[in-house]
């Protein structure tokens, strides 16, 4: 448990005094948007803060704490066998406990036992991490973590790097291990749905401050703080299409940024003048939770906006027709013959697990990749590498950080993009910025001065500059926080309506696709295995794989 844990960074306080306790056999979740200080808390607990960051206050925990990192692809040493990596921990634990160093046999037995505990075969111990899938690696990590015999298991977003199907298994594994071993667990996540099924208690962190804390059911079911409420509303449901997606404007203030009064003031829906006078303290609100807010003193109503009418299926004349397109890399067939059509003004979704060929398909359509075979017709004309005009198809990429040239100002990048527009459709930089909801003075800024959501808006503005007919969004929101994701999805939906754009939206998140797409294609191993109106595909999937996908998504968001 922590008492007055404070974390200081080089430019300001990252985490304000923070206290919490986790009892053995119980679990606590810390939730909050990116940059709110969750990871720093986790690192402070195991004493591994990065250079230039320090913590004070007192931490008390029985025995040791083990931190399970986020990315299973980088958390294991790539040049050592899995068994060896687990064995190191076993040996270190023995030494710490003052026991005699275990022999080779004992070690091997311990490794096998631990692998078994995480449902892996003993043979995995001879494998190198790169020979395993992401889910298996995360299991190895868990085995290595519990080999240390910790009393406290800290999991920092243990599933964000994984596919939806793996995600649930890993989460269940963590839960099982925690229960069986009677560990105290600390789960860090920005995904409220995930936390809902996992944690006993929840701590909502905003800009290094606890804004709400209490029992999970109470905090998530009937949030008192407007931030918590907004967060839960930003999470898109898989079962319905909402008319408006709730989201939070703006972004989390950086450490050291000046503010007065309530730190959440700038983004708060309920803000009042008195909120600027002082910082609210955490006070009990219901018998199971406490919140730091002057205005709200009871559970806020979670208004579920009503369903939107699921839009109708495509009209006859297609804007884009993809027929029999294939692409292989070496011997690997990334895209088996794929057919896809998009009608004018239609939003088409493409779903599928990682590596199923979604991006390859998009790149072929955009002309960034040359297909091996097949035809792509756009506005009735067959596209070849020569006859593409920049106006036709544009792409919004996944990673907003690399999609903007860091050397160019926002205005410069947009102005340059505008040169590709037909003379009749030229807009000003300010107009473009306004279209994506950014103030005109952003034109002078550089990409690194923008938050992720703002960058993604600029990327969208740039894609709109040449007045395209079709916009391809390849995982355009998956790198963003839920709150920002909702904003961007809402922006895309409104732009589509206003500009009568056609949209191909690629995502592995069915809930997101439910919100934006009219029709859905499901891909697996480079093939399109199912297609139809989004509602129909999600509500009554016909292909076994789709059923599995839908089941995994539904469970993880409602479990």
């Amino acid at each position: 448990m922590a008492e007055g844990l404070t974390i200081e960074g080089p430019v300001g306080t990252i985490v304000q005094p923070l206290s919490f306790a986790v009892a053995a056999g119980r679990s606590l979740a810390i939730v909050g948007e990116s940059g709110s200080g969750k990871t720093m808390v986790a690192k402070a607990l195991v004493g591994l803060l990065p250079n230039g960051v320090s913590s004070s206050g007192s931490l008390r925990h029985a025995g040791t704490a083990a931190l399970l990192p986020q990315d299973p692809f980088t958390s294991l040493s790539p040049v050592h066998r899995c068994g060896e990596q687990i064995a190191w921990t076993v040996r270190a634990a023995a030494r710490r406990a003052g026991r005699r160093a275990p022999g080779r046999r004992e070690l091997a037995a311990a490794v096998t036992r631990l692998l078994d505990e995480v449902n892996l075969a003993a043979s995995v111990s001879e494998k190198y991490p790169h020979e395993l899938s992401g889910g298996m690696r995360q299991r190895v990590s868990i085995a290595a973590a519990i080999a240390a015999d910790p009393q406290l298991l800290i999991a920092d977003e243990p599933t964000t790097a994984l596919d939806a199907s793996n995600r649930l298994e890993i989460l269940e594994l963590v839960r099982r291990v925690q229960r069986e071993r009677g560990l105290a667990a600390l789960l860090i996540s920005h995904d409220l749905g995930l936390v809902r099924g996992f944690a006993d208690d929840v701590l909502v962190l905003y800009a290094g401050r606890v804004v709400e804390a209490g029992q999970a059911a109470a905090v998530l079911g009937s949030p008192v703080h407007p931030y918590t409420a907004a967060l839960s509303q930003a999470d898109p449901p898989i079962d319905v299409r909402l008319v408006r997606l709730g989201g939070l404007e703006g972004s989390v203030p950086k450490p050291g940024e000046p503010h007065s009064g309530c730190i959440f003031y700038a983004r708060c829906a309920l803000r009042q003048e008195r909120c600027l006078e002082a910082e609210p303290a955490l006070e009990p609100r219901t018998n199971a939770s406490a919140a730091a807010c002057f205005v709200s003193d009871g559970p806020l109503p979670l208004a579920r906006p009503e369903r939107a009418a699921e839009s109708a299926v495509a009209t006859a004349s297609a804007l884009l027709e993809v027929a029999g397109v294939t692409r292989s890399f070496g011997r690997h067939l990334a895209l088996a013959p794929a057919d896809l059509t998009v009608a004018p003004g239609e939003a088409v979704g493409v779903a599928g697990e990682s590596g199923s060929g979604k991006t390859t398909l998009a790149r072929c359509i955009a002309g960034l990749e040359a297909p091996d075979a097949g035809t792509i017709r756009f506005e009735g004309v067959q596209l070849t590498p020569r006859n593409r005009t920049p106006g036709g198809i544009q792409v919004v990429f996944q990673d907003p950080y690399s999609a903007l040239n860091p050397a160019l100002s926002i205005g410069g990048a947009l102005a340059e993009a505008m040169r590709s527009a037909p003379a009749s459709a030229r807009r000003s930089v300010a107009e473009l910025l306004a279209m994506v909801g950014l103030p005109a003075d952003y034109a002078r800024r550089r990409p690194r001065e923008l938050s992720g959501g703002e960058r993604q808006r600029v990327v969208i503005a740039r894609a709109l500059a040449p007045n395209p007919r079709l916009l391809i969004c390849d995982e355009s929101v998956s790198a963003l926080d839920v709150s920002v994701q909702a904003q961007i999805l809402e922006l895309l939906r409104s732009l589509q309506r206003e500009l009568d754009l056609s949209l191909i939206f690629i995502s592995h998140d069915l809930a997101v696709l439910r919100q934006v797409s009219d029709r859905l294609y499901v891909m697996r191993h480079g093939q399109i295995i199912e297609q139809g109106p989004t509602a129909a595909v999600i509500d009554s999937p016909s292909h076994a794989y789709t059923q599995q996908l839908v089941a995994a998504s539904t469970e993880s968001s409602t479990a």
Partner: protein
Amino acid sequence: MTVTSLLRTPGLARSRRRASFLTAAALAVVAVAVIAAVFGRLIFPDATHQDLLETLAPPGSDGHVLGTDSLGRDILQLTVAGAGSALLGPLVVECGSMLLAIVLGTLAGYKRGPIDFVLGRVSDLLFALPVVLVALVVGGIFGGGYWMLVAIFIVLFAPSDLRVVRAGVLEQTPRAYVEAAKLLGYSTWRILFRHILPNIRNLVVTEFLLSYAGAILALASLSYLGIGVSPGAADWGRQLADGREIMFSNPAAVVAPMVCVLLVACAVNVLGDAWEARAEREFRG
């Protein structure tokens, strides 16, 4: 029960301060060297003048602050005048090889395919060859000469620059902003020079400075081996080779050029490191 309290990690600020002091010192050294290189001939118009009546004068004698060498040349004047060939040739080497690397490296990294393959093999080969040896063999067989060596070094230094440029381009090309530029129909040259190059400029500048230091040393080494500047000219490498022979009569003859080579190469290396650190800071945030 364990009670952990964590203390502030010191050091970063101090090392930053040390770094900026070093950088300032390096800039000062380079500035002095450049002034000597540019104006050395004007300040000491007859630095290479031999005075056979005044050979091996000890330091401090008769207006010769560092004494004279075996040809009666004033060591101080000669050393100042030597800055010219010590800095200019390597500058030409590095500019030439960097230019070559930028033109070929961006193309190879961006276009890939056969150009990249051929350039890759050729540069692998040249990269692996010991620069001093190749220059010795080629330069030595063709009778040496300063500008011939400069030409040889341009070719020999290009591969390492090329690798850096190519790797930078290779790293930038798959980035979404380049793909976006392609989608917007920008020309290849526009993408390369307006979009990619500015983003690898820190790499290029760092490599430029570090290779420049290397070129200074390489040319000095070849002069030391006697395959470099023409006889009688002021040059640190040559001075070192000549000075060794009179090491005991007048140590200044070898110490002065030695200190100069060391200081200038160190300074340029410090600047390279400083630029690298700067680029890293910029990259981090």
